[in-house]
């Protein structure tokens, strides 16, 4: 079976700390895949390895058959991988619309002369970017805020705007780093619907880091559990929930036998 995203045995060590070790994650097309684990388990680091923020010291990453480890982040984005950030990284001073349009940047051509002369091709591309951005914003019900500065949006909207911006890069695989963090239950509910909807609509594979176990167990079809940089369990939500190693890893954090509620994190 060929995978859309195929990370094989990736790892990195920070001055003796094995942040991620021998991690293998394989996403078939259209999957909703969860990456969970207690705080400091190495989930965000795994995203950084896959997206080229850090170069994996071991292993390889393939996206739709193309080797992407060693490429620079913008090249990986172009290859079809996009992400959101655990601590929101929007372009705060830019408008909501401009944030999403920047996502389309990677799919456009940007010749200096065409930009300065505003050639018909340039104008058409700008309009296409704008239209596409508005379509995406509409899906997230953010279209009415298109002209707001991104930094003025409520927290939950900022998180959704980040997903919107990531989608504008037209990714094959979308990596979401704790998209529900800081959201209230009804926002979470609509977020999980949205994640499903965009998966269906755009035919993406989604790799999801999330602390809200309810959300993960509800929408993910496959889950990998990390602890101390190592994979301790892989399987369906049911299998993972029943795995004694997973229960143990979460015990100290949650004080309950089953990882079902939100795990607190600093």
């Amino acid at each position: 079976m060929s995978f859309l995203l195929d990370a094989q045995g990736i790892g990195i060590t920070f001055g003796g700390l094995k942040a991620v070790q021998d991690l293998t994650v394989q996403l078939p097309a259209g999957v909703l895949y969860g990456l969970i684990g207690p705080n400091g388990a190495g989930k965000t680091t795994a995203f950084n390895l896959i997206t080229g923020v850090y170069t994996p010291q071991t292993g390889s990453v393939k996206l739709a058959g193309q080797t992407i480890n060693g490429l620079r982040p913008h090249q990986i984005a172009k290859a079809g991988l996009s992400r959101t950030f655990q601590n929101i990284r929007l372009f705060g001073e830019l408008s909501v619309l401009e944030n999403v349009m920047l996502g389309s940047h990677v799919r456009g051509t940007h010749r200096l002369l065409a930009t300065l002369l505003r050639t018909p091709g340039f104008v058409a591309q700008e309009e296409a970017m704008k239209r596409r951005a508005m379509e995406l914003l509409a899906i997230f019900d953010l279209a009415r805020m298109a002209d707001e500065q991104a930094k003025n949006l409520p927290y939950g909207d900022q998180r959704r705007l980040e997903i919107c911006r990531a989608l504008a890069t037209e990714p094959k695989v979308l990596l979401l780093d704790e998209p529900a963090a800081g959201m209230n239950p009804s926002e979470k509910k609509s977020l999980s619907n949205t994640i499903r909807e965009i998966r269906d609509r755009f035919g993406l594979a989604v790799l999801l880091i999330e602390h809200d176990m309810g959300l993960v167990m509800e929408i993910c079809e496959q889950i990998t559990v990390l602890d101390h940089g190592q994979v301790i369990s892989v399987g369906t939500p049911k299998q993972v929930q029943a795995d004694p190693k997973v229960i143990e890893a979460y015990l100290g954090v949650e004080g309950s036998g089953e990882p079902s509620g939100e795990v607190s994190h600093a």
Partner: protein
Amino acid sequence: MKTLAQHISEISPARAFRPVAVFVPWVVCVLLALAVHFVSPLLVNEYWESVLQRMGVFIVAAVSLNIVNGFTGQFSMGHAGFMAIGGYIGAGVTYYGSLILHGSVGDPNFAVQGTLLMLAGLVAGACTAAGAGYLVGLPSLRLRGDYLAIVTLGFGEIIRVLLELTPKQVSDAAAVKASPIVSFFGFNGATGFAGTPAYANLFWIWLFVAITCVIAYRMKTSSSGRAFLSIREDEIAARAMGVDLTKYKVRAFVLAAFFGGVAGALYSHTGVNPSPTDAGFQRSFDIIIMVVLGGLGSVSGSVLAAMILVLMPELLRDLQQYRLVLYALLLIVMMLVRPKGLFGVKEIWDLSRGDRKQPVGKGGTP
């Protein structure tokens, strides 16, 4: 709740290519330049005309520096270095070109050819400055904040010292013809390069003011401009979204240096002799203040701030001894009242649209 199709139906239809919007700005550029050129002599005396010339030069300098410091968020402190490169090369082409082609400099019968020489020198100076901008831009990939500021500051100082080391000016046409290339670098050391005819009248200067502003604004409101701004806002997010940091940082430096060179070349054709101190920290700092005061990223802000800061010393001239104090005070008050500069990243015309904070904007619906 609305369906997606409903949302999309509300989105404005694709706007066709409108030649008017594309070409009109250039026509306006020329008209503005002509207006300044022919109207201002009716209103003000020669002294104020020279103030208007200097104002134009500094608008070009400030708007171009804004591309690096404002749009892209890379703090360059060496803009005067690029101006000086453009200024010296521009002056050199006109001066030595006149000697070679005509045997003398500043002959009224040679004014048309001289003006063409100025334009050639302007292009040569701007391109050389752009080349230097490329070299200075490269370290910006690795250096952040303070370190980049120091490197660019050093660049300006290096240019200043190099100019001080240049050999004596050659004023003998025969000697220039004998060895044109060696003569060309006769920029007269610390004394400064004298005798360049003042071919840059109000028309030329304000034409380039208008061109620079149109180009900077078109840059800002394009996908390349959003790439610049995204780097300034958050480099990590920008590259994760596919922005090639190397390409865009260098592009910003090259563009800024090019128009910095244009500003310098114009300035050295206004009867002001270029001297090595033009490349130094003082001048760079003057331009930075204009950009910061106008608002990092605001083209119209840079224009207005450059106007104010060129005019202020003139208007305060009557208060002679308090001039510098008032000047400093005004800046401090500005920074306190509007810490993001006059307009922040916005443009003057954005402000009239009122407060954007209203929850339901008109955005998205026609």
